[in-house]
Every structure is written in structure tokens, then in C-alpha cells.
């Protein structure tokens, strides 16, 4: 059994609750226990560093300091934005002890920053710490037939000197995980284009344009669905999809999965736990490609239990 310090991020309890809950299902299969950072706070997202330098460091700093109180050496973060803020802070603090000392004064009561805990996105954790092969071994329901466009967004692999993970231009980690699950990853050239993320509310016009291009390219690549590992990307591509379709006059109808949803599905978890109903764009069409398992209505519980029992026997 592995242990991992977990920073859920604000959206885990809101817009991306399905990411959070399916992540927990996946980690259960992978035998990883999450330990939440006690009384964590918001990372400050884009807003903090847009407006002020110190606060942008101080908010993540508090979480980093709190995380050091747990014993684990790695912190996993679900949300790509939280991950980036936390990692940027960590890298800058480690590079510049003077700055670390100064920022530390804002959270002096929580403790002293020591730089003990490494920060990883959950995607990075799956890829580096769990490994594609281990994931492949755990698959009980192959996703063969499903073509997915893996969309990483800006924050998981950029900037290279901060994240130090995968390629900033054409990353392949999520593609490899999807292929391990049995799905086919399409050749998708917009893997790391920006979706507009932080303008989701304040500048919707930009978001519609940028996310629109991503949807178009995903469709062009022949994908049935998009896979993401970031709540902001998901909500922009999924929630705004009807608006984009309206604006462009094109019907995309391309559901946007969290990577954990697909993993949980392939690991044989009952469909009703995967929170598909939360999606704005219906997922049924895309999932039909993987064959017999069609979304099971929540009422029918018995056969799912049977599947569960089966997997336990294995």
C-alpha cells in the first residue's frame, strides 16, 4: 500500500466533483491511500498572481508547509491549475531561499518551509510513480474501440523548467495511459493549446473561440471523446460546448472525460459510480464504441455487484 498526500483543490468539491470521486476509485484499485492536507486552502489560481506577487506565493506556501507535516514525500494534485501554482511556488522557493524566507513570514504560524515535499499532478503520479504497465495489469474491461483525443492543456507540462514532465509540445503520457486502458489515442495536434481557462467567467468570448478550435481539431482527429486531467479544461470544453456549437453552427457532440473516469471504467468499477450524468454533453454515444457495456441506469444495481464480485475473485 502506498500513501500519497492529496491536495483536492476547490473544484473537487464543486465543478469537478466527478474527477475527485473517480480518482479515489482508481486509487483504491491501485492500492494508494490518500491523505488530505489538513485544512488546506485555495491555491490562489490565476487571480492571485495576476494581481500580486506575494499572495500568489503565500497561498500555495501555506499548503506546502501544511503538507510537510504529513510524512509522505510526494503531494498529488488533481487540478492542473492548483498543481501549477503549487509547483511554481515550490520551484521558486527552492531556487531562492531568500524569497522563501520572506514568503514564509506570511504563514509563520503554520511552520517553516523546508522544501521536503515534491509536487506532482495526478497524471504525473500515474505515469511516473504507478507506471503504465501497472495500470495495464489492472484493466478488467478494455476500452477497445474508443478513440480519444488526449487534451493536456497548458498547465500540466508547461513551462518545461517548472513542471519537468513530458513534452510541452506533444506530450504522450496520457495517450499511453489511454492505450493501456485499451482505447486508441488519436493524433491530435492541439494537445497543449490553451482552452482559455481563467477567462471562463470574465471573458467568455475568448473561451468559446479557443475551446472551439480544440473541439474542432479533436473532431478532425477522429476522436469519439476528449480526455482531460484538468477541471478547468473539462468545464470549458464540456459546459461551454453547447454555446460553442451555437456560435459556430457545428454539432460536435463530443463528450469530455476525466482520465480517472476512463481508468475507473476500465478497472471494472460500476458505471453508476462514475458520475457520467454530471456531464453536459452526453457520454452514451462515445461509450457505445467499447461494446456491450452501455451506461447502466442507477436503478439496476444487481448485475453491477456481480461484476464487482468477479473482479474481487481475480
Amino acid at each position: 500500500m502506498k500513501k500519497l498526500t492529496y491536495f483536492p483543490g476547490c473544484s473537487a468539491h464543486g465543478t469537478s466533483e466527478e474527477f475527485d470521486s473517480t480518482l479515489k476509485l482508481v486509487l483504491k484499485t491501485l492500492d494508494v491511500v490518500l491523505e488530505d492536507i489538513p485544512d488546506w486552502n485555495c491555491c490562489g489560481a490565476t487571480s492571485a498572481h495576476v494581481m500580486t506577487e506575494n499572495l500568489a506565493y503565500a497561498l500555495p506556501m501555506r499548503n506546502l508547509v501544511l503538507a510537510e507535516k504529513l510524512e509522505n514525500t510526494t503531494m498529488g494534485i488533481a487540478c492542473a491549475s492548483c498543481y501549477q501554482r503549487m509547483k511554481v511556488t515550490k520551484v521558486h522557493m527552492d531556487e531562492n531561499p531568500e524569497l522563501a524566507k520572506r514568503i514564509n513570514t506570511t504563514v509563520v504560524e503554520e511552520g517553516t518551509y523546508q522544501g521536503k515535499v515534491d509536487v506532482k499532478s495526478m497524471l504525473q503520479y500515474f505515469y511516473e510513480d504507478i507506471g503504465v504497465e501497472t495500470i495495464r495489469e489492472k484493466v478488467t474491461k478494455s476500452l477497445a474501440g474508443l478513440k480519444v483525443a488526449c487534451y493536456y492543456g497548458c498547465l500540466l507540462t508547461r513551462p518545461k523548467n517548472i513542471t519537468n514532465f513530458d513534452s510541452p509540445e506533444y506530450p504522450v503520457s496520457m495517450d499511453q495511459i489511454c492505450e493501456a486502458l485499451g482505447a486508441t489515442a488519436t493524433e491530435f495536434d492541439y494537445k497543449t493549446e490553451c482552452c482559455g481557462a481563467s477567462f471562463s467567467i470574465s471573458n467568455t468570448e475568448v473561451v468559446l473561440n479557443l475551446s472551439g478550435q480544440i473541439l474542432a481539431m479533436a473532431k478532425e482527429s477522429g476522436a469519439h471523446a476528449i480526455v482531460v486531467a484538468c477541471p478547468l479544461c473539462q468545464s470549458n470544453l464540456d459546459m461551454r460546448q453547447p454555446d460553442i456549437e451555437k456560435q459556430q453552427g457545428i454539432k460536435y457532440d463530443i463528450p469530455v472525460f476525466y482520465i480517472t473516469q476512463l481508468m475507473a471504467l476500465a478497472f471494472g468499477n460500476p458505471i453508476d459510480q462514475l458520475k457520467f450524468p454530471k456531464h453536459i454533453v452526453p457520454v452514451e454515444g462515445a461509450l457505445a464504441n467499447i461494446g456491450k457495456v452501455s451506461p447502466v441506469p442507477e436503478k439496476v444495481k444487481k448485475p453491477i455487484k456481480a461484476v464487482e464480485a468477479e473482479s474481487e475473485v481475480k
Partner: protein
Amino acid sequence: MARVGVFVCFCGANIADYVDVPQVVEEVKRIKEVKYAVEYKYMCSDPGQGLIRDAIVQNKLTSIVVAACSPRMHEKTFRKALSDAGMNPYLLEVANIREHSSWVHQKDKKAATEKAMDLCRMAVAKSIANEQLHEISVPVTKRALVIGGGIAGIQAALDIADARIPVVLVEKSPSIGGKMAQLDETFPTLDCAQCILTPKMVDVASHPYIELIPYAEVLELQGFVGNYKVKIKKKASYVNFKTCTGCGACWQKCPVKVPNEYNMGIDKRKAIYTPFPQAVPNKPVIDAEHCTMLTKGKCGICKKVCLPGAIDYEMQDEIIEREVGAVVVATGYDMWDPTPYEEYGVGRFKDIITSLEFERMVSANGPTNGVPQRPSDGKVPKNVVFIKCVGSRDEAKGIEYCSKICCMYTTKHTILLHHKVHDSHAYVFYMDIRAAGKGYEEFVKKAQVDTGTTYLRGRVSKIYKKGDKLMVRGEDAQIGQVVEVEADLVVLATAVSAPKDNPELARLLGISYDKYGYLSEAHPKLRPVETAKAGIFLAGCTQAPKDIPETVSQASACAAKVCGLFAGDTMKKDPMVSTINNEYCSGCQNCVKVCPYGAIVTDEVPIGHGSKELRTVAKINEGVCQGCGSCVAICRSMAINLAGFTDPQIINEIVSI
């Protein structure tokens, strides 16, 4: 008692602005051995040297200290001044008060002045221990080695051989010709590369003074200027060149197909092959890596069809040794591999090719018979995007420098495209058009007008696939808009990079190379052809990217240098070599072990005066000794000293301040 003269240079303002020169002069006058000290504006100027000459005569000086720029700069100049005054030139010491003081302590004149004084004291102390030294004469082997058979090596070899000096030309691949043999037409005159190159290649093969060793590499170089010994490995070709008639039956029948290097892998050659039809020598070799007879012992067809019986599967690599007096290195360049450009999808998109691949495609003897084709579907491209500076001027993904030739060859490519595909349209993404050269700007202008090529000023940021087209996105800074071009084919003007084997070669030859892997010249402006190691010269792109005219000029310059070196029967050599004091030498021979040049041998001397009994001592070969001093430092009994850097000289320096 030593009588030292000290001459302190202002170097215009270079020294005088940051060092109080008169004060330095006053200070050195206090040293008891200093009998004369003076300052002057430019010591290296003729009047400055005159000052030294006059002072030597008038003051009966026994050694001279010039406090000026680095000895690496003007030591020779001042030595000359000493000999002109009838003094042994090696009684000179230079105190480096410019590079080591005035230029590096510009904010603290007092400290810089004090340091300059100390440097003068050290030089004075050292000069007191200086001894008269005399140049060494060494015999010369009048034969040159040229490494690399591209246009640079060919030109150098021909020019040297025309002066009736024997040349050994070593080429790595089975044929000479190099990169130029792969080109279609050449800028700015558009003459066909083959037409101007192949006659020279044939000249090389038939020249009575040139020994061509193809399919070979240099293994080892020993010795010193005028007296090098080189070991060359001639790779087994498995074809006896003496009996082979070059009929071609073997490669026509060979069943094994291998990507063709000459055509950048666009088509296939056989496992027994001549690289291209005009190859020199026009004899095939067997590619041992792919030949099934050599790898698995199955096949043998070429041997069956060879009427003269020239195929020999048992052939072994051969080591050839030659004595040469000088070496010309002309190993050319590599095309930079654009894989780091992930945003262009290099490696993922088949229809992105490099400029050399394009060159092969438009070449009349190329794999597509001179008509460019899309590698993905073989269609003739209509919209072709050329991207310049791929790898060049890009410190993030490529190389910092400008590759110099890409602007011109891309211009040439737009013309060639226009010639071959009349209804095509070329787009060029560029940052600057660098067309400095005779007829170059005119060539660019003519190309732009004649072909109607669209020039877009900006670096391409992304290429992605849309249907069967490639979408090329970049900014056109002229209109300040982001543009996307729908391309059928994208040609990357990849950078010129140093041959990857250069560092190894440099180590083997004992010369230096820069951070990119280009071999270093002795001086960037005044000695661009020589290396720091005497007798080794550089021609062509192995030193830095250059175009064909420049390469040929440098190759001819190398030839002139080699001919100059061989002008006399002996050569003069610096006297800074190790000397052995037999009386002190205990014969332990540890020095023999540390000498990197094998310049120390053992000798037998009588154990005492008039004795018949002999004992072993070390002996230095002055001609071979390069003066590193390794032997001096390890000699425990102080039997060895290095002229110019003797123990007393250095210790004097240490204790003088």
C-alpha cells in the same frame, strides 16, 4: 650582475587609463637589477621597438621586460626587437598588465597599479633567470595528409599536389565528393554542382601526386610539425579495387535493399553499392552491416556474377601508415537534426522534409527524377512552405549561431521549385535575409521577382495537420497578423552543425574545438587557417559554416600554408624544450612514462668521467618535444628543466612579490 631594462606600455588609453604607468616605472626602478625603465605610448609600434633596441645597446642590458599586453599577443614582436638589437630574443619577458590588470580592474586604479607593479616585479625576477636560447632545426617530411574528400579536401589536395608535393587524401565514405555532390544547382549562379565538381573529382583520382584512400579513417597521429606519423584504417570494402572493372553487375543483382544515404534515405540502394553514378573511385563496396553474406553467410550472388572475381568476403580492415609533414583537416559539416522542433511535428508528419532532402528531390539524378514529391502520397506539391532558421539562431532548441548558407540555399530552392513545378507557390518564413556575398543580394531580388514567392517575416510557431494539408502558423510581422498557410510540403532550412566526430578527431590530432564542435583556428582574424598545433590546418565547414566559394578559398589558403611550410629542407622550431642534466639523472625512466609525445628515450652514459661502465639516463628528442613540462614536474632529482620555464625562473616569480 643582471642588468634589466623595463619598458612599460600605455597601449594608448587601454593601460594608461586604469594603471598609473609613470608610478609603475618609478616603482620598478627601485629593483636593484633594473638599470633602465621607461614608459611609452605604444611599445609595439616601430618607435616603441626602437626605444627597446636603443636602450639595449646604450645600457648594456642583459634581459628585457616589456609590460604591455598579453605575451600571447606580442611576445614575438618584442623578441624580434631584441634580436634586431643583437640580443638573444629569449632574454625577453612580458608582463601582461593589460589583459591581466588594466582591462579587468577598471574600477580600482590603485589596485590595478599595484598589481601591475607586482606583475613587473615577477617578470623582472623571471627574466634574471632567463637563459640564451636558440631555435631548433628539424627536418621535414614533404608529404601532406588531407582528411576529408569534400570540395574543401579536394581543392586543398589538388592545389598541394600541383606544387608537386605528394598528398594522402583520406575519405570516410566510399567516394569523394562530400555534401557538394548531393547538391543540384548552386547559388548564386545556378551552375550545376555535379558539372563543376566531378571534373575535380576525376583530377584527384588521376593526379600523380595524390594518393586517394577512400572508405578509410585516421586512427592515430603521432609526432610533430614536419614529422608526423599517421595511422589510417582502411575499412574492408570486400571488393578488390585492382581487379574490379566497375561494371555494376554486382549491385544490379544484389537482393538486399538499404536506405540510400546519398539520397537522404528517400530511395534504396543495394548492400553492395557505389554511392552515386559519378563516384570516385567508381568501384563498389559491400556494406558489411547489411550484406546477408557477411552477416548470416547466406547469398553470395555478387561473387557469382562478378566476372573478374573481385569480390572477397574474407577481406579485413587494413592499417596503413604514412609519414607526413602537415595535415589539412576538411571534415565538412552535418545537417542539424530538427527533431527537437516538436511544435512542428517533426517526425510525425511525413510531408515535412529537410532542405537537403528537398535538394535531392529536385536534383536531376535524384530519387524522384528532379520533381519534388510529397513523401506521404507521392503527389507533386503545389504550396510549399520553406521555414528558415530551423535550429539556427535558436539557443533554446538548436544552435546560437547563424548558419550562413540557409538564406541563400532557400532562395535557390524557391527558384528550383518554380522551375520544376510551374504552377507551384512558395512561401518563405524568414527572420532576416542575409545575402552578404558577391552577387547574392541580386540573386535574392531576382528570385523574389521571378518566382513570386511570398515572404513572411516571422518564425513559424506551429504546424498541424488538417486533412492531407499541413497548416503552418506564424506571424507576418510586416502586417502584424498571425497567418496560416495551407501547405502540401514543408521544407525546413535546417542548420549547419559541426560533424559529430569532430571532438574525437580533435583529440586524436591534439587540436582544440569550440563549444559547438567546430575545430578552432589559431586566431579568428589573422590566422583563420592554422590550428594552434603547428602543421595542422583547417579547410571548409569543419571550422565554421561557410558557402562553397569561401570553402574553396580556405582550402587553397591551406595549400599555400602547406607549401610554405615545405619550402625549406628543415624547419625552425621554438627552443622551449626540455633538457636533461645527465649528472643528476638517476635513470628511473618515470619521465619516459609521462611524456605524451614519446620524446624521451633512454641513453647510456659512462658512470663517471673516463669510466667504461655505463649507466642508463633519459634523453630528450628536441624535435619531438613540444615543451609541456610534464617530465620536469615529475623529475624528483631535478635533472630535467624546461627552457623558458625553468624551476629557477618560476620560483623567482613566486618569491618576487
